[in-house]
């Protein structure tokens, strides 16, 4: 029990830090709120889905960035989708980088796009790692560990 409490506490802390550090935003909370007994792993499922689906988007963008000349419209369109997805899971930093990228697209700044995309990827990967760690810990702590948020 004690151990459990401790785990729970850890999970809570980890979670909090994700928010504090800006990796996650409010939307994540919404997801958490949707998770309940009938849907116990909802958040993790959504995140998994996100990473799976956005992988191809990332690949598309990468490929498009290799083309010359750069097709900004296309890039913007991909990024729009990517941004939408990312915002749905609450990926704040990723989302911010996406916005930046789109801004560069808008102004036709190829260099800026390429550079920003690297950052997008970085944030994307970082978030994934953090979330994975978080979920793992949450699983260890047992169900209802972070249940407090719903309240």
């Amino acid at each position, binding site marked *: 029990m004690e151990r459990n409490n401790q785990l729970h506490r850890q999970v809570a802390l980890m979670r909090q830090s994700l928010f504090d550090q800006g990796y996650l935003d409010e939307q994540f909370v919404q997801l958490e*709120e*949707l998770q309940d007994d009938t849907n116990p792993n909802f958040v993790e499922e959504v995140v998994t889905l996100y990473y799976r689906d956005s992988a191809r988007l990332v690949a598309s963008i990468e490929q498009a960035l290799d083309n010359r000349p750069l097709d900004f419209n296309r890039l913007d369109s991909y990024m729009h989708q990517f941004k939408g997805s990312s915002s749905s899971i609450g990926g704040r930093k990723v989302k911010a980088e996406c916005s930046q990228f789109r801004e560069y697209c808008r102004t036709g700044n190829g260099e800026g796009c390429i550079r920003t995309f690297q950052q997008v990827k970085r944030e994307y990967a970082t978030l994934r790692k953090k979330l994975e760690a978080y979920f793992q810990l949450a699983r260890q702590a047992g169900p209802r560990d972070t249940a407090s948020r719903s309240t």
Partner: protein
Amino acid sequence: MTVEDGGTDRFPAGMRVLAVDDDPTCLKVLENLLRSCQYQVTTTNQAIMALKMLRENRDKFDLVISDVNMPDMDGFKLLELVGLEMDLPVIMLSAYGDPKLVMKGITHGACDYLLKPVRMEELKNIWQHVIRRKKSNTKNQSQLPNQDKDNNESGQGALGAITIANPDGKLNKRRKDQNEEEEEEDGEENENENEDPSSQKKPRVVWSVDLHRKFVSAVNQLGLEKAVPKKILDLMDVEGLTRENVASHLQKYRLYLKRISTVASQQANIVAAFGAKDPSYMRMTALNGFGDFQTLAGSGRFSGTSLYPQGIMLGRLNSPAGLGLQGIVTSGPVQPSHLQNVSKSINSLGKLQPNPSPANQNTSLLQPNQSKPGPHIRDITKFDNPTSLKISPITDNRATASTYSKPRHGIPSSHLFLQGNPQQTRSGDEFGIQSSFGAVSLQSETLDVGAAGGCNFIDKSRCNENWHGAVQLPQLPSANPTQLTVPFNCSQVTPTNMTEKFTLPTTFIRNSPNDISASPVPSALGDSRGDMQCQAGLLGNVVPNVNFTSSKSRWEDHNQNYQHFNHGFGTFDSVFPANGDINSLIHNMGSVSSVRSGSVDAPFADQSNSANAPLYQQAEVGKSASMEANIRSIENYLLGQTKFQDGFMPNGFESLDELMDGMIKQEPNEAMLTNGDFSLGTYSVESCM
């Protein structure tokens, strides 16, 4: 549990929502959010699938939430289509919060626009849109006091005498539904389709072609400005029809006309360009009117091509190569932008293949960028398969529009579609789509299609309203090519049967004197018509025909013709002498040009079944310039439709509706196109998808 049962007690719990988003992550989140609000959720990541589901059973859902950016179909298009066909509230979702997009959503008829990521709080309140809409509908339909607040507003008076004259269709609607403060889908007028609001069970009024025809003739008799629901009701003398029904229908009609007029002028240009080909594309003129259509159509979904008619027409105009578009092109003025849209859509439609004699004069429309419309139109031509029913492209799409055939309208399915006007209308080419709309400016040739087709497609569901009049091409007896009437029956979709001939109002087409060959459609229609018909998508095809009557004058001429044709809108016969006579019809039209009264209607439509009111379009065409605009819109519709070839029957429908409205509005004058039935509008060709 459905609200319809009057079981509003449970509402909003159990509200049935259809969620559409291509992004799986977002969709999943949305689904869960909605479920947690206790709604019943159905999801799909394809717009096409969504449309299909909706068409299968419109009553299965209360609300639709859709993403804006989707690969298979533009969210706005979907929006328009749904609004046109099913009159369901649609909420747009997007990660973009750009005011322009929001505005677009509004004009296309969205009842709300949410930004992603969506939050629970926002979703908790979406049920209000359903109630609101129902109330509006209820109000329209009957004066039941149920709608408490609505009633007040709509006022009995308000309902009735809404001066739709308002340039802003939306306003009208608004006035009518006072309770709808927000933009509520203006576009989605409360059609008479009364989706019976939950609160009270109003019998839904189906505006069949005949009914619409009557309505139009009543309105024409009274004069558009003076047309008040009460009088119209009296004139129509139809049992079971209430003033509210008429009022609501009138409003839509006005909007439609308005829209058409803008489009028509554009289209006229285009049509002129098209000249020979497909008068059906009269709709093209509607291109300009796209904007209007949007509003008209209620859901303006037609993003971009809001003019369904245009697109539609274009699309449909089978091969007539320019189905109207051609003509339209010439007019040049056709708003290129619209055309562009249209053409784009058209292209997609099926590329109406330019008729053998494509270039008919106006082929310019169809032709690659001819006067602006060109580019668009060109697409249209693409649509058209040289095959006889030129509408074929549309028809294909149309096939999808099969839903169109919904009997709802009462249109015998032959709606219209104008298309047909494949190629040269005269030559009897398959005029298939004579889309009457297009006719407006469409050169008499292939005009038909556009309008008609468009209408058909546009709103299958709308058929209730039967604006079809115009579009519904009465089933022309046979393929006589000459027959302009392209009965675009949606139901008929069988490509081979196009016999329905859409007698496209080829008359519209261009007034070009005698060129009214628009009729060739008949024959063509026969075969492809089948496709055309409903193919809601066809509309798109037809659109090409939309005669972009680029020049208003054309319209005027057409208008005159229309009047001439007004014979009775209902019977096509009068107008299109079943086969072969079309030429004479056209001829008449030419002479009628002085008639100008847009009353062209009638003959087209009813040829075989009252359903085809495609003539309406024509009639409207009479309105002259305004008609052109209508055509444009029609064309846009068509174009839009064409776009859908893939099966989206997208917006085209809406535009048709709009076209119709536009057309109808063309000039309140004379008889307002007696056939006002712009069934076009209702052509939800797309539904066929």
